[in-house]
């Protein structure tokens, strides 16, 4: 089963140390004030560790919102 918002939410909550974060596909850095470039890195590393994937620099730069994040994870986890 591919991860969905429910799988991503606890990671966001832990990384930002904010317990009531609710994620939507459209949620972006604009919606979470703490989501700056530093936290972006930590978020990426946490997601990578959790799902056993690795993103390329170009992919990290392009991410606009949570929905795109999930799509990217799905692409990485898809059998080649």
């Amino acid at each position, binding site marked *: 089963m591919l991860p969905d918002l429910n799988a991503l939410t*606890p990671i966001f909550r832990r990384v930002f140390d904010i317990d009531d974060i609710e994620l939507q596909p459209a949620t972006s850095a604009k919606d979470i004030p703490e989501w700056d470039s530093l936290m972006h890195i930590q978020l990426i590393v946490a997601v990578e560790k959790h799902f056993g994937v690795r993103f390329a620099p170009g992919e990290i730069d392009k991410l606009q919102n949570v929905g795109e994040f999930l799509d990217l994870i799905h692409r990485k986890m898809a059998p080649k």
Partner: protein
Amino acid sequence: MKTSLEKELPVDSAGLLREALDCEDGLQLARIARRWLKLEDGGKREGTFKMAFICGGSAETYLPQLRLMSAARGHPFMPMIGTFSGFSEDILDPSSELYAFKPDMVLLHPTPLDCVPPPLPSRDQKEFLRQAEAEAGRFLHLCEILHERAQCEVILTNFEHPWEDPLAGLPPGELTHSAFVSRVNDLLAASKPSFVHLLDVASLASAYGRDRWHDSRLWHHAKQPCSLDGMVYFARKFAGLVAAIRGSGTKCVVLDLDNTLWGGEAGEDGVEGIRLGEGSAEGEAFKAFQAYLLGLKKRGILLAVCSKNDERVMREVFASHPEMVLKPEDLSCFMVNWESKADNCLEIARNLNLLPQALAFIDDNPAEREIVRQFVPELRVVEMPDDPSLFPATLERAFLFESVGLTDEDLKRADYYHAENRRREHGEKVTDFHSYLTSLVMVAEAVPYQACDAARISQLFNKSNQFNLCTRRYTEKEIRDTIENPDVLSVQVRLADRFGDHGLISMAHAVPVGNATARLENWVMSCRVLKRGVEQLLCNLLVSEAQRRGLEQIEFDFYPTAKNGLVKDLYAQLGFQKSMDLDQGGSRWLVKTSSYVPFPLHIRVNSPACSLTSTP
């Protein structure tokens, strides 16, 4: 979740700091740092000194972890981030924000990209070496200017080996980027002045593994110089070095016995039944750990035993087990009884004249670790793994024994304490205190501060916390300035007795205030020689020198701190008259030179008081 982020974090500052010490996961450490800084109001409430950062990467990516870890080791600081990669810019410009900040300490953390080799590949050895000298010289020169202008201590990281070296395929001996970095690092180590403290990031990165240490993607993305997990070790090493510079390194390792120094329980299994030494992998692992501890002892770290056991049986193991690497004389304190380990640790600290925070506690039993942690929170309890073959690495990666340099005293320290134990046994035989002091046959050498001892004097002022009357710290340069100022009265005392040489153990200086008065600047003494009469000797010498200079009085100031309770009544005990209260709970005490009656002493002084005059 699969990562350690699953773990719940404490909600209080002290709990977070404790959690930080043993945290192995980079994400988790960053999270602890963020929560701690939020609690500490962005860190504004904390901070006992000021630290500036000039970094070749983005300091923002790891400053929170450095602040957290330094606070966890007892040294919270107020930070300031200088210009990105602005080593020359910030240091050469006297009007830069760096100097306006007035830092007490500065971290210069260049990356391999800041170390510029000559055009490579090349076979021009001479040009290669010339350029290496130029690069090392460039950074040391900046350190000197910085120290000169800001009077601060400087931490300079040496250079990591290049993250990528296109010439890595060439054999050793060829002129590669990596060979260049090694050469520059050697030059830095060989020619750095004493106020520059090298943080050996090159060794750290290679011990960790370069490819895990550096994450080139994070570098390209955020100029983060090393991976999040690697940062854990950088932060620990950094905090260990800061502690060493500020004189609060770990001075003693307190060791459990059963399943810590050997496998099995000597009380149950008998001396021959324990697993130690050749014959089993486990026994070899314990033996290797003992050898590691012996190495620490030789470098000046004291070893003490704290075990819930039958003392007789345990002494028997030390005396008769053929595979024991540690011998009874390697132990500065042997505390084997059935009392609480928390109490025993405090007793060990008292015995060795150390503060509890100078002790590290090693025990295989998590319950004992927890008790000590709860009852003596300032003591460093190391989280040990179950596998004894990991003991040495675990202790090493805690970075408890960072140092600003090996001294002669380090090499002799364990012997001092061994002699001290003999002294104590001797003292138990002599019932009357005066005859005890006489029987020690103490000889002192007392002279004004000597230029050749400036480094040691600065070190003792900076690391003494208990017998420290004003807790003022001095750089080596400030001590040299003091020596060159003929108006300053200064005394340094070396002490030896029939059991051994204590080395330089006490010093004080006073500055003139007006025509008739000298005022104590600071006075420190090693606690090893407490109540031997050195306190009185030093008073005698200062006062007689003041008399000789025609001064009417000396003002002795005292400022209380959390750590110098030992000397809060010293002046009263010496019979001085209190003259006034000072700021910060301090007090000023007067000694009139005309009515001063020198204290009788049990110490023979080799240098007459008149030699206290500085020779021009």
